């Protein structure tokens, strides 16, 4: 195998995955002749193997469609692809297509939940609970995950399918990283402030309402405390109103979207990094890896992919339940009072990430996996072709209805020999 097609949005696409892939390409190019596909291609490039980077956002629509059409290796950046599938169906006016996917994956319950989600009901928790990733996973030659949590889920879903748990690489545009003082000077942040930084796009599941309230209380006692949101903000998020109500006032700063170098400066400028997430869609955060890499203590939500991926001590897990706000406040007060503790956690974090998340090492790991998948590609493709039929046709509908029972038992790769049984029935369509 030589030629590898890498499908993913690339910068300037506003996606952390775009940055991740762009960083990994030079290292991957040492192993393969890499061709990148960053938008809907016509026609698709010829390649020995296709590598699909899939995340839970509309920017990955063309990757999702390609992965379903042409089996390859899927890099699952998020466990849940629900928002992506919603974009591919409901937001394009195809509600029945979305309901079919929900029912295919989750049966009668899925159809019921789907009807609510299609009407924008149920909030963000339902999409997190119904990840809608089965179709791309089942149609893949192999799956790469960036967290042990997702790797375990894939292994249960697709026993026997080639799988790699690839540590999320560390990539810092400024290496070695700038010091806290240098970063603050470069960014115009006060040198003596206690800065808590929430990195990346501010969305509803990053618990920023909690962060705002806690920081307001801290600032009431320590006026030098500042909350920095280092990234753009979802316009639906009422950050300013939250800050006003909590009395945080000008203790909140929102940077807007950042170039990577400034992003690194912001995490380096922080005393503590706040990377909470609930509900989690199983995503591994590149921002967390960078924050750890520059040696900052990072608070993450217990149960999230980041909390499971890094040993306790390297990250600080916070219970996302009713005690969340009290826990965040207690941790921040403790870290505020203990610069030495912040330093020790930061050092632990930097050492761990640099030993286990090196860019060249992870690229080599991925290359070895891709070669192994390619070696079995012919047989794997033949197995995938068996029992498949045109999804839009009656035969495909019948086969999916029966395959549901097998999928529900975890028998994704078992050949059922359905076509011979069901094809005569499908001929009844007039």
């Amino acid at each position, binding site marked *: 195998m030589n030629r590898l097609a890498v499908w993913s949005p690339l910068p300037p696409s506003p996606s952390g995955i775009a940055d991740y892939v762009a960083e990994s390409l030079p290292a991957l190019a040492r192993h393969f002749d890499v061709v990148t596909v960053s938008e809907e291609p016509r026609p698709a490039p010829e390649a020995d193997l296709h590598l699909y980077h899939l995340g839970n956002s509309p920017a990955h629509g063309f990757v999702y469609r390609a992965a379903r059409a042409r089996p390859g290796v899927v890099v699952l950046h998020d466990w849940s692809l629900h928002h992506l599938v919603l974009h591919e169906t409901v937001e394009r006016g195809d509600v029945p297509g979305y309901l079919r996917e929900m029912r295919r994956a989750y049966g009668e319950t899925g159809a019921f939940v789907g009807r609510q989600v299609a009407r924008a009901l149920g909030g963000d928790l339902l999409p997190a609970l119904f990840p809608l990733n089965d179709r791309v996973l089942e149609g893949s030659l192999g799956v790469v995950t960036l967290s042990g949590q997702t790797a375990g889920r894939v292994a249960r879903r697709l026993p026997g399918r080639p799988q790699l748990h690839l540590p999320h690489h560390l990539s810092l545009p400024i290496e070695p990283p700038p010091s806290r003082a240098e970063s603050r000077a470069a960014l115009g942040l006060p040198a003596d402030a206690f800065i808590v930084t929430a990195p990346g796009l501010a969305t509803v599941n990053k618990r920023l309402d909690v962060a705002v309230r806690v920081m307001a209380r801290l600032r009431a006692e320590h006026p030098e405390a500042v909350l920095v949101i280092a990234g753009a903000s979802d316009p639906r998020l009422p950050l300013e109103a939250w800050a006003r109500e909590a009395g945080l006032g000008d203790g909140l700063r929102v940077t807007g979207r950042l170039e990577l170098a400034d992003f690194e400066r912001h995490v380096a400028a922080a005393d503590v990094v706040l990377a909470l997430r609930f509900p989690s869609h199983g995503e591994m955060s590149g921002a967390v890896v960078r924050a750890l890499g520059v040696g900052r203590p990072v608070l993450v939500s217990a149960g999230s992919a980041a909390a499971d991926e890094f040993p306790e001590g390297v990250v600080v897990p916070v219970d996302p339940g009713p005690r969340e706000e009290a826990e965040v406040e207690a941790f921040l007060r403790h870290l505020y009072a203990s610069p030495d503790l912040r330093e020790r956690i930061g050092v632990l974090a930097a050492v761990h990430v640099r030993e286990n998340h090196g860019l060249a090492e992870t690229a080599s790991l991925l290359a070895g996996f891709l070669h192994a998948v390619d070696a079995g590609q012919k047989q794997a493709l033949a197995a995938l072709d068996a029992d498949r039929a045109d999804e839009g046709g009656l035969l495909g509908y019948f086969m999916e209805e029966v395959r549901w029972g097998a999928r529900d038992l975890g028998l994704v790769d078992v050949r059922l020999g359905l076509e011979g049984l*069901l094809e005569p029935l499908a001929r009844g369509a*007039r």
Partner: protein
Amino acid sequence: MKTVLVCAAQAPFVTGGAEILVSELRANLERRGFRADVAAVPFKWYPVSELVRQALAWRLLDVTESSGIRVDLVIPTKFPSFLVRHPRKVAWLFHQHREAYDLFGTPYCSFQDTPEDVQVRSAIQAMDTAALTECRAVYTISRNVAERLRKYNGLAGESLYPPPHHLGRYRTDGYGDYLFYAGRLDRLKRLDLAVDAMQRVRSGAKLKIAGAGPLAEELRKQIEGLGLADRVELLGFVSADELIALYAGARAAYYAPLNEDYGYVTVESFLSRKPVVTTSDAGGVLEFVTADETGVIAEPDPEAIAHAIDTLWSLPPSRLREMGDAGYARVADITWDAVIDRLTESIR
């Protein structure tokens, strides 16, 4: 000894006419020297989205042999049992899934006008057509069922009427003062129409309703609400002896379901030599009831039905007996031997 497997879709804990018919078919096959058994797969008809999956379960079964014994013939009965695969399949079609056919778009249908439900409906029609095409022969329990098969699936079916449960025991004890209905109390039987009509009759006719079902409570309220408790009686479940006695003493039977597949009430009534009051849209019932010869046929509205009942009540017993005799002659040749002869023709 030839082996025959009767295929039945059954809703567990529910026993109705179809289950009784399957059991009698098996008994009569054995009586005629066949080794017979029944294969029943549970069937749940709701929600609509699950129908196709439920139906396809039949397609996955191999019933060509059992413990090394070859199955010579399979007789599927109602939807979706005829999806079963077998080289010698002779269907005796009780009915298809009517919500995907003649009931579609009526108040009696749970399918919605959504792309998902339309897809399910199309899929059911397609697999019915294909699976019934595989049959060596398709018999139906009435001409009405055969007509639906022709209309919706383009397939020919030959009617083969099933005998009622108590064949040989029905009798006549005269012509009393009540109309009689026996059967399941569900919406399609339209007993609410009969109760409404009873409020309008002038002849003093009474109505006795035997049977149980989901509409029992609703009917009870309707009867009380209209002040008809002294003339309309809900008997609930009755024994076989009571059933035969109730037919024997009735003046006539009432049977006006919507586009019924077949309708035992008609046949039982005729075997008891009683005319039948029905409606012009009653389906299989009309294969037997001829206006003024074997019963009366009204338009399906309370006023017209009340008028039909009054007409019947104005007739002398001798005329009622004539109509009853004509009905009896109409159903006299419905026998199990005739049914078994046709169904097993290909293995005898």
